[in-house]
């Protein structure tokens, strides 16, 4: 054992820097209060401090840091969406992700894998062509590939035609990546706290103070604080929080389940998705196969796991990847997703003045963490919604101006 390591271990003043500073009491007033200490809320706090120099900010979290959907997603990052609005938005996110580890000086295990969206029908192939053209037009690397090329890039996949749903082709998106989701949240939290932002865990918001249609404060289980501007970033519980502000959302809370296998040696380096078969799979840096399927068939706030999910997922999974037949599932879990009617998020202004929303993150929230944090921080700092967020306004449902992204959702619905 090197002497330095021994000295390090025996040192009384532990020389490693504390990842997060210790928590303080709540102040009586903040310029900005963010409800929800998940990836999005933390990213917003980080960019408020870093880009706009606003540090009198509190992030209030009911449970613990990034313990909700930030820790439950399957960590896929991509920008091969269907609408020009969606592609522009997610592309900015991918570009921010690519620089994020340097920004934080922290290893996020960001790993570009190449992302396949398989097509098993002519209709799915048509959507793949459509997405490829929209992507290409906006400078996103994405193209339609056929079985011979799929087999070359991803030899593990079974492309036989004596199965129920043979693969006809795929949309291939080389920048498709995975990253360690907890690390993303921790990096944002540390960066925000180092710049003076306060993060308060175990602090549940129980109500809002609204005077004359304008939010002025937030009631919490640890007392009331005044706030200049407030943002809710509580995907999964968005409707519950928005009711405190007095408005309804076009959101249904629907569980999404996923599972991981025991760790295996690295054998599979692509990300493969099939919207028709309702499956997606990648192998994490520690060797676990991360697998997910379709959203649950009805609304629910319980994060229970079901056998139905596993059966449905595995029957299709084994058809595409017979080599998984001996692989054991290690863990299964669920997250509660905010499903919007058009499969796009909701960001920006609300009917309450100075109260902003970041919601509707369905099955596409993790990949948008950096761009949403950056652009929502801009919104909170200036009070003006930037152009890139405008298509995702809450009032689009009153104006019937939806941003239809169902065709690009990797999860079956």
């Amino acid at each position, binding site marked *: 054992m090197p002497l330095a390591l021994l000295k390090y271990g025996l040192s009384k003043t532990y020389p490693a820097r504390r990842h997060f500073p210790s928590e303080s009491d709540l102040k009586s007033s903040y310029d900005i209060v963010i409800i929800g200490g998940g990836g999005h809320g933390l990213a917003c706090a980080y960019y408020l401090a870093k880009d706009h120099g606003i540090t009198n900010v509190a992030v209030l979290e009911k449970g613990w840091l990034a313990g909700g959907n930030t820790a439950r997603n399957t960590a896929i990052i991509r920008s091969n969406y269907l609408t020009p609005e969606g592609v522009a938005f997610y592309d900015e996110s991918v570009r921010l992700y690519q620089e994020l580890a340097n920004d934080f000086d922290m290893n996020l295990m960001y790993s570009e894998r190449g992302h396949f969206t398989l097509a098993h029908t002519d209709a799915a192939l048509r959507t793949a062509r459509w997405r490829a053209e929209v992507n290409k037009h906006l400078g996103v690397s994405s193209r339609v590939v056929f079985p011979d090329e799929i087999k070359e890039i991803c030899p593990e996949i079974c492309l036989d035609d004596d199965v129920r749903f043979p693969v006809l082709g795929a949309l291939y998106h080389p920048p498709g990546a995975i990253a360690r989701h907890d690390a993303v949240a921790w990096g944002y939290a540390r960066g925000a706290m180092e710049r003076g932002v306060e993060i308060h865990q175990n602090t549940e918001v129980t109500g809002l103070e609204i005077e004359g249609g304008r939010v002025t404060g937030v009631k919490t289980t640890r007392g009331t604080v005044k706030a200049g501007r407030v943002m809710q970033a509580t995907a999964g519980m968005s*409707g*519950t929080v928005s009711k405190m502000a007095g408005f*309804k*959302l*076009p*959101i*249904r*809370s629907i569980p999404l389940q996923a599972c991981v296998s025991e760790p295996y040696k690295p054998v599979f380096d692509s990300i493969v998705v099939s919207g028709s078969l309702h499956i997606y799979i990648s192998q994490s840096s520690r060797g676990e196969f991360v697998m997910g399927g379709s959203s649950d*068939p*009805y*609304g*629910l*706030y*319980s994060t*229970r796991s*079901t*056998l*139905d999910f596993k059966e449905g997922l595995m029957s299709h999974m084994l058809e595409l990847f017979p080599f998984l037949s001996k692989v054991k599932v290690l863990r299964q879990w669920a997250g509660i997703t905010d499903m919007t*009617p058009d499969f796009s998020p909701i960001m920006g202004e609300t009917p309450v003045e100075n109260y902003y929303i970041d919601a509707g993150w369905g099955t596409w929230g993790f990949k948008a963490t950096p761009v949403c944090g950056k652009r929502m921080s801009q919104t909170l700092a200036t009070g003006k919604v930037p152009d890139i967020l405008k298509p995702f306004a809450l009032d689009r*449902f*009153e*104006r*019937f101006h939806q941003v239809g992204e169902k065709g690009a959702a990797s999860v079956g619905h």
Partner: protein
Amino acid sequence: MKILNCPLNGPRNIQEFVWGGEVTEMPDPNRCTVAEWGDYVFLENNTRGVIREWWCHAATNYWFIAERDTSTDEILKTYPAGEVFTVRTDFEVPEEDSKG
């Protein structure tokens, strides 16, 4: 396997059913504002607790109502829609449409 008790077909695997969302009141389409119609079509109560909701038994195309707790997934009861909707709703056709 989770069982849903269909008022027409008896207890069946819940996979045979399609969820239709919460039972809400429809505004008069001829008189409501665009925003009110948008509210009816898109906005959700998304209640955490006992709700009354639509279900359809896909194989028989039979729509009925269930009461279910959305925090525990416990189905409390199911009954035919006729128990709630006792009066037939007839829509008057706006004049400009009826000419068509």
